């Protein structure tokens, strides 16, 4: 069943069109992540769903109701902000109770709900404190609690972990995932951090300039990006891109400089092929050393820079005159200046039309 449904949503700030006729359907209990660079309109979309921005055109449905003109509090949503947005002069308890009091809920029911939320989020000892006396992680828990007590169908998160340090971010990320497993609410989560997106999402919507580029599972988005933009955005370090000519004699192949990469194993989407194409392969899909020769394609590269990162090592090399990165085991003995053999399976690659930048 659909939980949130957005139809032809357009939003303008004056003459600036931030969202352009956007459509999106989110299933009941789904964890959807809106991912994109800063300024692409993620927060704007979330604010439209929450009812905090008046939209220019289109419709929004939540839980089957048309909420396009409804107040934020009537939409059955709870929202968690990057800056926590806790009411500074109220205690934690007061923060949690504020929305319920506004809804004129009986006192004993309010207490019951606060007790439950505090138990779920393990903030019972903090109830009497003021927000200023809490750490960042505790504050964000309280902010989640504020959405939790209202017993809403849909949770909206706007970069909730961005203000936390790396360690805490990783902890709270797992906790949000756990919370989703337990509550099974629909969650819409905005982030610019692809690790958060990949780890949390049932589906990811990748946005650029107010347009959703691809809406799919993390696995599909990572392995089969629909266009050059998505391919370049996902993955860190990013995919290697090599521009070349497609040839189709006995077997399809990509030619550049003096190199020919056979593409017989690549699952082309259609037979309709342009001359120029961009070949993309992720650094982690490249093998090195002895394993390289077992791959369908292998070639010698010169190593320029080696960046050890502990668990693995990133190698910057030159492949037939082009920059090429690949990832090897952290124990690797590769040194700058060496020449080494690398190989990969073109079936794991992504190939894009050089003109339209769409996947072939």
């Amino acid at each position: 069943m659909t939980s949130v449904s957005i139809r032809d949503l357009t939003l303008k700030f004056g003459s600036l069109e931030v969202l352009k006729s956007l459509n999106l359907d989110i299933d009941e209990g789904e964890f959807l992540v809106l991912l994109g660079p800063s300024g692409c309109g993620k927060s704007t979309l979330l604010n439209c769903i929450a009812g905090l921005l008046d939209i220019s055109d289109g419709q929004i449905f939540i839980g089957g109701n048309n909420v396009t003109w409804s107040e934020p509090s009537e939409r059955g949503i709870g929202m968690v902000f990057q800056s926590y947005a806790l009411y500074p002069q109220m205690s934690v308890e007061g923060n949690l109770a504020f929305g319920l009091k506004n809804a004129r809920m009986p006192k004993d029911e309010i207490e019951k709900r606060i007790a439950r939320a505090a138990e779920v989020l393990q903030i019972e000892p903090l109830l009497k404190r003021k927000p200023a006396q809490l750490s960042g992680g505790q504050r964000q828990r309280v902010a989640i609690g504020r959405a939790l007590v209202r017993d809403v169908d849909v949770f909206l998160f706007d970069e909730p972990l961005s203000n936390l340090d790396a360690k805490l971010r990783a902890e709270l990320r797992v906790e949000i995932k756990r919370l989703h497993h337990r509550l099974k609410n629909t969650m819409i989560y905005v982030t610019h951090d692809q690790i958060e997106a990949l780890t949390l999402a049932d589906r990811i919507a990748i946005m650029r300039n107010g347009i959703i580029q691809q809406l799919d599972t993390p696995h599909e988005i990572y392995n089969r990006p629909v266009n050059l933009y998505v391919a370049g955005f996902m993955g860190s370090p990013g995919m290697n891109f090599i521009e070349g000519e497609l040839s189709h004699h006995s077997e399809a192949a990509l030619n550049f400089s003096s190199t020919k990469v056979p593409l017989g194993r690549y699952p082309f989407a259609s037979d309709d092929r342009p001359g120029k194409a961009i070949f993309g392969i992720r650094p982690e899909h490249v093998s090195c050393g002895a394993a390289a020769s077992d791959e369908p394609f292998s070639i010698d590269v010169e190593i320029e820079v080696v960046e050890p990162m502990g668990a693995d090592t990133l190698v910057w090399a030159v492949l037939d005159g082009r920059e090429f990165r690949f990832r090897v085991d952290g124990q690797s003995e590769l040194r700058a200046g060496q020449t080494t053999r690398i190989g990969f399976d073109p079936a794991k690659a992504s190939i894009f039309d050089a003109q339209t930048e769409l996947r072939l």
Partner: protein
Amino acid sequence: MADVITRDTAAAAMTAGRMEGPRGAKPKRSISPRNVFIYGTLLLVSIYYLLPLYVMIVTSLKGMPEIRLGNIFAPPVEITFEPWVKAWATACTGLNCDGLSRGFWNSVQITVPSVILSIAIASVNGYALANWRFKGADVFFTILIFGAFIPYQVMLYPIVILLRELGIYGTLWGLILVHTIFGMPILTLLFRNYFTTVPEELFKAARVDGAGFWGIYFKIMLPMSLPIFVVAMIIQITGIWNDFLFGVVYTKPDVYPMTVQLNNIVNSVQGVKEYNVNMAATIITGLVPLFIYFVSGKLFVRGIAAGAVKG
């Protein structure tokens, strides 16, 4: 061998030098040209401000015979509170002879409602302008700011007519209305600028929590804004208490504020000039703003400290 020795002694000398050199906090000279200049200036300025106050207090405690001796800096030989009592209760102001007491109560009756009204309205204005982007907000704000730059003199007479048409010319309420309106531009600007510094996400969170225009104002914004309310109160209380122009133009002798009455006492032409009474009357009139500065100064600092603890 000799080489080794010289090197050793050099090293030893260096270590020794290091031990002997400056260490710890750098000593400060208490009498330096800089300090002399700073303290000298401060002292001069203090005297410049405090000397008149001293003369006023001293004079107000003297009897007239002693004042006639002309030694204005001399402390009173015989301290008397007679001038203070007279200034408060029996000095003549043209028509009445009940001193400043009448003017004091008039001023209280003018200041209290004016301050409350102007701050209440301006804070809501500022809140609406900062947080609810309603249609025409920019135009409204521009007009208001423009109002802050129109000289009072231009509006004096039109407002006389306006008040007369409203039937409140010459009454306390007429003056209260004038003070409320004239306080609006600067106060609204003050509150708007303050409320725009409140994080927008806080406001959004409150809306998601179902709070409306007044709910957010009273439960979220007001409790966060004590310092700015104190600032607004200082501006308004001192401004309205010290006002002379509006008081003399828009009220009648019965309801003259204290400042106007003070003027009438000091400038009354009957009989001899009673300097001691005049001084006492002036100090009494200035006591309220003085009191506000002392009390609110403390509150103000505390308010800022409370506001600095962000959520």
